[in-house]
């Protein structure tokens, strides 16, 4: 539950390509940190390294440490599958499993972890769907396939699926980029609520969104094509958007806002 995240000297590679260089930052528990920056600057790559999804790509490599409450998830004794079971992830496009019912989608993670007790699973399904503000909309059709929901509902279903395991950390990779403004608003409200219980890292291209939902903002940038992405600065969201420490941050933010 809601652990503290520390990233130390993280370097990420795709084969020989050095994708991200020397990232260090800290995320306190029950806090929302937003990653912003131009396309290709490595923010999604960093996010994917936080639950060991980065290494799924062929040739991908990680150097450095990612600590959850002081424990390195890249320690040699750690099983990546176990890491992913305790960290929730929400993707850019809603990806409920189309052949599974809504209920089965929500408890998919628990099932993988070996929970079989039907009563427990039903309880978790209800709690998670309530947590994702979806319960009232789907409570009468829990046995229908998840693919029948609207895009925004599907994304909340994916959030319910991610929080069903009560993750130590919740990762969101541009969770609203495929949604309409109303669904986006629903998700943003949800993030604000989820913050009470979970540590959240969110990648977003929408700077208003970063400003609205996050406590802390990290700005990533790319010095040039073929160069590794870098963390330029990380600070309180308010400070980043009003008085950033770096020129590059200010240029990026004002360029979009202006």
């Amino acid at each position, binding site marked *: 539950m809601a652990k503290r995240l520390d990233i130390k000297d993280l370097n990420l590679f795709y084969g020989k390509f050095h994708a991200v260089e020397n990232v260090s930052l800290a995320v306190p528990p029950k806090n929302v940190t937003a990653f912003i920056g131009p*396309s*290709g600057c490595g923010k*999604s790559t960093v996010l994917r390294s936080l*639950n060991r*999804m980065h290494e*799924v790509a*062929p040739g991908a490599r990680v150097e450095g440490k990612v600590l959850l409450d002081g424990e390195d998830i890249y320690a040699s004794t750690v099983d990546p*599958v*176990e*890491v*992913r*079971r*305790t960290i*929730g*992830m929400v*993707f*850019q*496009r809603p*990806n*409920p*499993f*189309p*052949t*599974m019912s809504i209920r089965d989608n929500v408890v*998919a*993670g628990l099932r*993988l*972890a070996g929970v079989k007790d039907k009563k427990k699973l039903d309880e978790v399904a209800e709690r998670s769907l309530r947590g994702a503000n979806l319960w009232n909309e789907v409570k009468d059709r829990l046995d229908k*396939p998840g*693919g029948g929901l609207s895009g925004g509902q599907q994304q909340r279903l*994916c959030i319910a*699926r*991610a929080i069903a*395991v009560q993750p130590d950390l919740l990762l969101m990779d*541009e969770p609203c980029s495929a949604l309409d403004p109303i669904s986006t608003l629903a998700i943003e409200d949800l993030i604000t609520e989820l913050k009470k219980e979970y540590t959240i890292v969110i990648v977003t*291209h929408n700077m208003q969104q970063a400003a609205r939902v996050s406590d802390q903002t990290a700005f990533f940038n790319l010095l040039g094509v073929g160069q590794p992405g870098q963390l330029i600065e990380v600070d309180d969201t308010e400070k980043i958007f009003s008085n950033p420490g770096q020129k590059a941050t200010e240029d990026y933010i004002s360029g979009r806002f202006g």
Partner: protein
Amino acid sequence: MNDPVVARRPARSGEPGAERGVAAAPHASEAPIPPTPEAPETPKAPHVRPGDRIFRGLATGSGVFIVALIGAIGLFLIVQAIPSLGLDNVNFLTSREWNTSNPEDLRFGILDLLLVTVVVSILALLIAMPIALGIALFLTQYAPRKLARPFAYVIDLLAAVPSIVFGLWGLFVLGPELYPVSQWLVDNLGWFPLFAKGNVNLQLGATVFTAGIVVAVMILPIITAVSREVFERTPTMHVEGAIALGATKWEVVRTTVLPFGKAGYVSASMLGLGRALGETIAVMIILSTATSAFGWSLFDGGATFASKIALAAPEFNDPRSAGAYIAAGLVLFVLTFVVNAIARSIVAGHKEYE
């Protein structure tokens, strides 16, 4: 992140395409055609352009042609079969007798042929399906990329081996080699009808058992190739979703690849079954003709529709006798249609991914 850009590209390149006789795509699903640098034609007539009309005509013509062809084949079979069916002195569907040597007294029924055909094909399918599934999953999920490609080529190559070669292999190599296995099955499981002592010499292995195994090898490539293609298309977002939930490799396969590929795998198997039903030369060489009727044992001999017809082909000198075989061909034709229809309905039942 890049999706919107990629998605927009076809629309852009479609605009210049409109000037080149290929007209703007009526369906969003049409593949984008990259604009060629040749000089644009005069863009005055916005209605149907000649290129469009010609292509449409060709496409429609091909479609009509194939339907007409199938209809013509069916019609041919029916027209040729009816006179002989009228002269048949036994029940065509339920008799096990097949005697067409005397055109004045035709006695032919397909039951035996049907049983042998179905048993050989089902046996082949039962052997080939799990192996093909394993190969397809191995190639798409487990094999290192460097290995997967050449391995897939080898499997495809298997499909290119002429069936006569498989037949010879079955007759001279596999049949005799199987003798210890079949002897053991007869000795120990002989009480079960499928493994009972058959009506041909077990030592030569000219049995339904051997034929089924050979046909299994022959349909393996097609089932594998189609399943592989389908499994490869499992949406990355579902695979990643499963991985992010902490699924192991096998759990990823079980929660995403298999549900996604199930319909494709079933139709691949039905394609294989279609091939197995019609397989002629290999089965003809392997199976020895039996004097007594098919008794449900894998160690029986006999003939399938196709092998029976092929065996008799040199003796089609009387149209009345030939008509009997054409009637058998008609049944095979209908059988493959039914199999395909079943496959279609299974596929249609799994629309979640479309």
